């Protein structure tokens, strides 16, 4: 092992006020308005699905949340973790931790909205279907990640351990998928991100794409917000330690 110097690329001279909770986080405001717009559009201006009825509308919350959690939040945790082990910059650790926390929130939304829809359409709150099981274990994995962060006092150790766990988690996801898919699956198959053209009428498709966009924006806003909190905490610790 070469010597590893952990550094924090945020300059120490940055005044704490920069992170202070004064002022309004306009990005967050815009993101929340966009999500509210999505809800209004989905409820009032999108056709009701013929066989599923109004229950199908939960799809405009469920699918974008899953997209954000899996493809944005947890992907970023893996990338930031790998980069941390390489560059040893605490900034990357804060990005990974923030993204994991926001990702857990979105996964919780997925795991809450799914059963509500499932009760109406499948007749059961929960079933040990491949996708449900995989999502549940993903949730457990990242909740474990957050629990572990809380259990380590030393800042540098917390960063290193989290990066190792974040990276191993990324390796684990394909295996969980593989093993649960060897069971049969009951979940509706992808209807937008699939090789052939999306099989959704234009009215619904546009609402869904709008939902993807607004949820992604909400993710970015929450990530930024959470990152600032992490940076402020680190700075507080540094000042108390000094």
């Amino acid at each position, binding site marked *: 092992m070469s010597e590893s110097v952990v550094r924090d690329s945020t300059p120490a001279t940055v005044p704490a006020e920069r992170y202070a909770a004064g002022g309004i986080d306009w990005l967050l405001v815009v993101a929340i308005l966009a999500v509210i717009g999505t809800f209004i559009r989905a409820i009032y201006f999108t056709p009701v699905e013929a066989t599923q009825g109004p229950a199908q509308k939960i799809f405009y919350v469920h699918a974008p949340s899953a997209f954000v959690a899996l493809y944005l939040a947890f992907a970023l945790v893996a990338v930031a973790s790998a980069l941390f082990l390489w560059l040893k910059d605490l900034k990357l650790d804060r990005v990974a931790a923030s993204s994991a926390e926001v990702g857990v929130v979105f996964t919780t939304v997925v795991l809450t909205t799914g059963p509500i829809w499932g009760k109406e359409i499948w007749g059961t709150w929960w079933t040990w279907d491949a996708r449900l099981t995989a999502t549940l274990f993903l949730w457990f994995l990242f909740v474990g990640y957050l629990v572990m962060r809380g*259990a380590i006092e030393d800042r540098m150790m917390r960063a290193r351990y989290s*990066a190792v766990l974040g990276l191993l988690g990324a390796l*684990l996801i394909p295996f969980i998928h593989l093993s649960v898919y060897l069971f049969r699956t009951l979940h509706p198959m992808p209807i937008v991100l699939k090789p052939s053209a999306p099989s959704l009428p234009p009215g619904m498709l546009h609402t869904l794409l709008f939902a993807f966009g607004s949820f992604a924006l909400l993710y970015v806003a929450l990530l930024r917000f959470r990152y600032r909190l992490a940076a402020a905490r680190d700075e507080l610790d540094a000042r108390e330690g000094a």
Partner: protein
Amino acid sequence: MEPSVLSAALLIARKDLAIEFRTRTAFFSAVVFGVLGAAIFYFAWDPTSVPALDLAPGVLWVIFTFAGLLGLQRSFNVELSDRAIDGLLASPVPREAIYLGKALANLVFVGAVEVVAILAVALFYSMPFGTHVFALGLLALLAAVGLVAVGTLFSAMVVNTRLAELLLPVLSLPFFVPIVMPAAQATAKLLAGRPVVEVAGWLKVLIAFDIVFVVACTLAFPFTLEE
């Protein structure tokens, strides 16, 4: 002269096994836990509606997992007293060798617990022996390698945290899903007398998991040590 990674790993494994062999506390606790678990699980189901043999694979793998965790917990705990880990780190062996040695000792430990647990479950659940002994043994070995690869790394990590005893299962169990699920499914098929071909898919999952995580955990281990 620096010893090679492999011989250093063997040396560390021998040291750990010698400690365990002289005290035998962890092994006996794990074995008692396993046999006790097998007995208690029997009463968790109505034996008139579910045949004991149908429960056996699940019981077996749940017991392996938890008994394995008991042993893994100890792996780096023994290095805490008198900060023995500092001695290991100061010794002229590659960091990877420390991990591999620890993992090897754990593999022997988990393997020994597996043997006793299989016998206990076979006895209590009238498991038919004979048909696929070799395939079952291979299955148990592949699963144990995966369990130990991930568990040894996490054991090194949680030992430095608060909540160590609780954190090891919380971190490890999601990683054990792609081990326990194929192992239990394949065990069920083999015990039902199905041909080995039918479990080839599950065996492939286990082999892939073992390769990926032995390599990944060996590479990741140096990052978990204090500099």
